[in-house]
């Protein structure tokens, strides 16, 4: 019916109206796209690009290829069962001499040292003692004499496994896994298997802080949403004041409050409640307290906005239909605040995951979260492969959790609303 109307409406032109409408629509879309294009390009270059670049570094493995090219080629067909043949030794000797001349040997040494501790010394001492290219046929003997490590199979499998151009080495390391001499994936040595624990700790702290924020923030948001505007605005200022204060200042304030001769301990001591100062800082307790304080506004604001939209009439209706207060709250009020709870919790949780300054200042050595290690490998030891791999695992885990969480909250809303 509408079709007939549309096509018959304008007989004077050849082009049917429907198509012209579509064309006009397309022009509008193009114009709209042109308006957001600058932002899109900006985001691509400043956000998506760098993230992709960092993720790429987690698998990028070209250092050894560039520094020891002949060796990599010579080892390509090696079965890894016995020591490689004379050709590989000669190739390595040539590569080491060339790398020493161009000053690039340390780059390979650094990469190989990640996989086999002590490789730095093996390469540098070999380069120091290798005066000239060995006579043809004697490379194996010469290198073995300079450093007995060249008679070990693991030395060579390490070079082969680092031949690139891409590697799973860093990602495996971020999950406390490694490849053994035969290339099978095995657990890392107990002294070096720390990252699973650190990830677990990161998620545990984030979940605790989210729960604390929800428990503390819910009543505050309720109060803000139900008070008359004048007083609620005053309270809102109190919520926003810490929000506007520097993170560092707030964290240091907690140090002053919680340290063993700080305000809290001194007050308790003066009241005669304790004899010895309590350990409130440089441990998990201090981290949770300080992070909860810093992140509380991020929970209160979404909760407040969702509660503001709930009409008081619903609760009155529930009461008039005979629901006891608790039932009315659980069946009527709580389901309507779910979007706020969902948004607030997700916001706080994801912000908490990346926390760095606060745990660094008020936590102990056993409370450092994954961001501490990412920062350590990024700036201090410049092991960017491992830093990127840790970041990639964190990103993936966070995305998965956010998806699961989104599904859960949505499901709740469908079943828990006023439909039943």
């Amino acid at each position, binding site marked *: 019916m509408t079709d007939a109307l549309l096509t018959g409406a304008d007989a004077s032109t050849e082009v049917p109206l429907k198509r012209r409408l579509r064309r006009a629509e397309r022009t509008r879309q193009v*114009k709209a796209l042109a308006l957001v294009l600058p932002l899109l390009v900006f985001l691509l270059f400043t956000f998506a690009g760098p993230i992709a670049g960092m993720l790429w570094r987690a698998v990028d493995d070209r250092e050894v290829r560039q520094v020891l090219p002949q060796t990599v080629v010579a080892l390509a067909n090696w079965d890894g069962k016995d020591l490689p043949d004379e050709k590989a030794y000669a190739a390595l000797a040539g590569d080491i001499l060339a790398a020493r001349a161009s000053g690039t040997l340390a780059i390979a040494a650094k990469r190989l040292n990640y996989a086999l501790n002590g490789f*730095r010394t093996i390469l540098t001492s070999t380069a120091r003692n290798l005066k000239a290219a060995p006579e043809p046929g004697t490379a194996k003997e010469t290198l073995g004499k300079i450093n007995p490590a060249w008679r070990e199979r693991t030395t060579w499998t390490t070079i082969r496994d680092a031949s690139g151009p891409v590697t799973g080495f860093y990602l495996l390391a971020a999950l406390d896994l490694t490849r053994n001499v035969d290339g099978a994936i095995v657990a890392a040595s107990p002294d*070096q298997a720390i990252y699973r624990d650190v990830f677990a700790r990161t998620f545990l702290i984030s979940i605790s802080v989210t729960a604390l924020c929800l428990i503390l923030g819910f009543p505050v948001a309720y109060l803000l949403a139900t008070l008359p505007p004048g007083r609620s605005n005053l309270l809102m200022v109190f919520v926003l004041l810490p929000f506007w204060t520097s993170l560092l200042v707030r964290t240091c304030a907690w140090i002053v409050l919680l*340290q*063993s001769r700080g305000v809290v301990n001194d007050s308790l001591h003066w009241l005669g409640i304790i004899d010895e100062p309590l350990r409130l800082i440089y441990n998990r307790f201090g981290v949770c307290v300080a992070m909860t304080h810093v992140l509380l506004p991020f929970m209160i604001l979404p909760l407040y906005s969702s509660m503001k939209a709930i009409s008081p009439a619903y609760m009155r209706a529930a009461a008039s239909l005979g629901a006891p207060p608790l039932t009315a709250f659980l069946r009527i009020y709580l389901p309507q605040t779910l979007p706020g709870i969902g948004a607030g919790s997700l916001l706080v949780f994801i912000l908490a995951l990346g926390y760095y300054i606060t745990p660094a200042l008020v936590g102990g050595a056993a409370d450092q979260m994954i961001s501490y290690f990412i920062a350590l490998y990024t700036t*201090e030891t410049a092991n960017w492969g491992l830093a990127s791999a840790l970041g990639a695992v964190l990103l993936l885990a966070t995305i998965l959790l956010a998806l699961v969480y989104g599904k859960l909250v949505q499901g709740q809303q469908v079943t828990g609303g006023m439909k039943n």
Partner: protein
Amino acid sequence: MLKRNIALGFAAAFSASAALATVAQARDLTVVSWGGAYQDAQKKVYFEPFKKAAGIAMNDESWDGGVGVLRAKVQGGAATWDVVQVESDELAVGCEEGLFEKLDYSKIGGEAAYIQPSVNPCGVGAILYDFVLGYDKDKLKEAPKGWADFFDTKKIPGKRALRQGPKTTLEIALMADGVAPKDVYKVLATDEGVDRAFKKLDTIKGDLVWWKAGAQPPQLLASGEVAMTSVYNGRIDTANKNEKKNFGMVWDGALFTLDSWVILKGSPNKDAAYKFLDFAGKAENQSKLSENIAYGTSNKDAAALIQPAVLKDLPTAPANIKNAVEINVAFWLENIDRLTERFNKWAAK
């Protein structure tokens, strides 16, 4: 119409960035150091007098270290820094990675003018400083004698603070366990030595607090949070001078290290950079720095120009350096990742 406007916008943006790029080409010499009281002292004795003497415009900025930062600066292709003061491990790694210019010592007074540990192909020593045992004289009845007392909670009760991470911590633990300063790295190079260090740390694990930034130890001492801490010697001196504290330090078994000046690879202001390094390397200028802040310096003749009263509190004073260990850069380059993982494993137990 819209298209043309966008094109114009792009053109404007490009010409603006091109203009900015030419500005970057012709920027002033930029020197980067560690900030705080130290950079204030440097401003007074190096930066300002250099501007006047050489007639060269220069800016100074501060940073928090990390070879990753320098790598990003140089590989990013638009390094805005020329001369940077770096720690010894940054110097070694950056030198290997080709982030720094190879120094021509003939332009800065020749290698013979400097003490031996400060001469490096990529950098020249700026200051020498120590990690010492620091304590508050007002709070402790009995002054600690060395790292062995640091681990003796019966003799001196209270908490202790060390720098978070394996570096300096393991050396201190071994010295407390009776290893002579000169043998520390020999022992630490073996697996038994590492185990021994962690075993020693286990004895006071419950009383340890970890600091991360150099400003924290004096604060921990001042608040009474800890009885003793490892600390940069300059920080103790500054707290005593500026905040009227009564902190003491133990030079025996101190760990010393050097910071060096480097010129970033591809710096457009290389000539001005050399002139600055030459100025900052002269004995008469370095002696003024030591009088402002308690760090030892790299010029051989600087000590002779410093008043004896100041000299006795410097890391380079003969009595103070006699039983000190230089932090072994080569050892830490090879083992930092492995031992950091092990340290964190131990801390989480």
